[in-house]
């Protein structure tokens, strides 16, 4: 069985994995990172989006063995010492979640979007999140939350560390 060494949310893990093990199953079942949900079987829904070496990927479509030597960030790696990341706080304050199932993926995809474009228009936010489905169809507030977080991340409060 191949051995992998993966950094997940700042901690390094070494494990033997079956080649067919999906990254999302590795995160959830082996590391207990259940903040990343599984939404579909077809790479459509984006619920399982995480960052791999800083770029968003759908962790149901990456093998755990492909994450060997890579750095993974899940939604669980965003907050620092109980302080929510600006995106998490904005989703909370703008009521950008209803059932909440799509939220981790939405936040990770939004983080990827803001890395490339710190001040996106509503249309750019919608395009940036096109790979993430909200079955509650609560997109209005999701867009609003991303816009709000973008504003906060451009001018972070002095006492707040913002990552990444």
């Amino acid at each position, binding site marked *: 069985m191949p051995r992998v060494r993966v950094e997940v949310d700042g901690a390094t893990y070494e494990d033997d994995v079956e080649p067919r093990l999906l990254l999302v199953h590795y995160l959830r079942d082996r590391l207990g990172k259940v903040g990343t949900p599984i939404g579909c079987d077809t790479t459509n829904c984006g619920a399982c989006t995480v960052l791999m070496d800083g770029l968003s990927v*759908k962790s149901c479509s990456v093998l755990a063995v492909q994450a060997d030597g890579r750095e993974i960030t899940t939604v669980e790696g965003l907050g620092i010492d109980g302080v929510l990341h600006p995106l998490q706080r904005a989703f909370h304050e703008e009521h950008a979640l209803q059932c909440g199932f799509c939220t981790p993926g939405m936040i990770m*995809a939004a983080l990827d979007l803001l890395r490339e474009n710190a001040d996106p228009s509503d249309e750019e936010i919608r395009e940036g999140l096109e790979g993430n489905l909200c079955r509650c169809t609560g997109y209005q507030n999701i867009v609003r939350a991303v816009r709000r977080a973008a504003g906060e991340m451009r001018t972070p409060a002095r006492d707040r560390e913002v990552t990444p």
Partner: protein
Amino acid sequence: MIPATFDYARPGTVEEACAALAEAGEDAKVLAGGQSLMPLLRLRLAYPDALIDLDRVAALREIRDEDGALFIGAMATHHQVMRDPLVRAHAPLIAKATATVADPAVRHRGTFGGALAHADPAGDLPAVALALDATFLAVSAERGEREIAAADFFVDWMTSALEPDEILVGVRVPKLGAGWGVHYEKFHRTAQAWAIVGVACAVRRERGAVEAARVALTNMGPTPVRAAEVEDFIAGRTVSESSFREAGERAAAGTSPPGDLHGSSEYRAHLARVLTARALTAAASA
């Protein structure tokens, strides 16, 4: 679902990859970005004995200038291709069409060569490669390198001309010279969905007339199709709405579009005519 078991190899060079593929035999699959193959494995529509993962073959990610052509490495990701200055300058049709593929997360993993080797007639890039007269470079351990013209590469539904022991190394795309305008017109039901029909189009204008046009269609048959009748009709005509509409009328000629829950084959033929006129118009004014 969890994929069926398979052996896994992660070569670091093209030579190692070819050797691993040859050794693994006919029931092995090459894993590029995995954005088409992984869902197939998960749905158990595919259950290869072995996967040869090209993820760490860094040499295959290169995009380089070869005088009259660009060489795009098979493992260049969509994300990389659509931002690449060489692609944007010399093959803008590829940059434009790639930006419509799936969504950002899929484009971070999905690759140019993988999308072509997958040979899905609903994929956007096969028609683009066909319209641009691209040449495919394949390599095998036993027989070395060979070139395959785009017109010969797409053989049938999800079937390319690649032999089981061959790996697609990259694609050579002739540069479009000055005077060409390009457009990819895609009709789909939702933002990230496959094209119901797509039209890849390049038009060269000269003094108010169309000097030449290249038009290829996505999802109008088991392979991408070159709309030769459109190209022949429009060449030499003045740039006008009516000439583009008349040209578009010829777009479905000789095609055999599929019928499915997104549309009947008659509907696709209608779309091809309308979208081709739009694509020509947009390319001529680009």
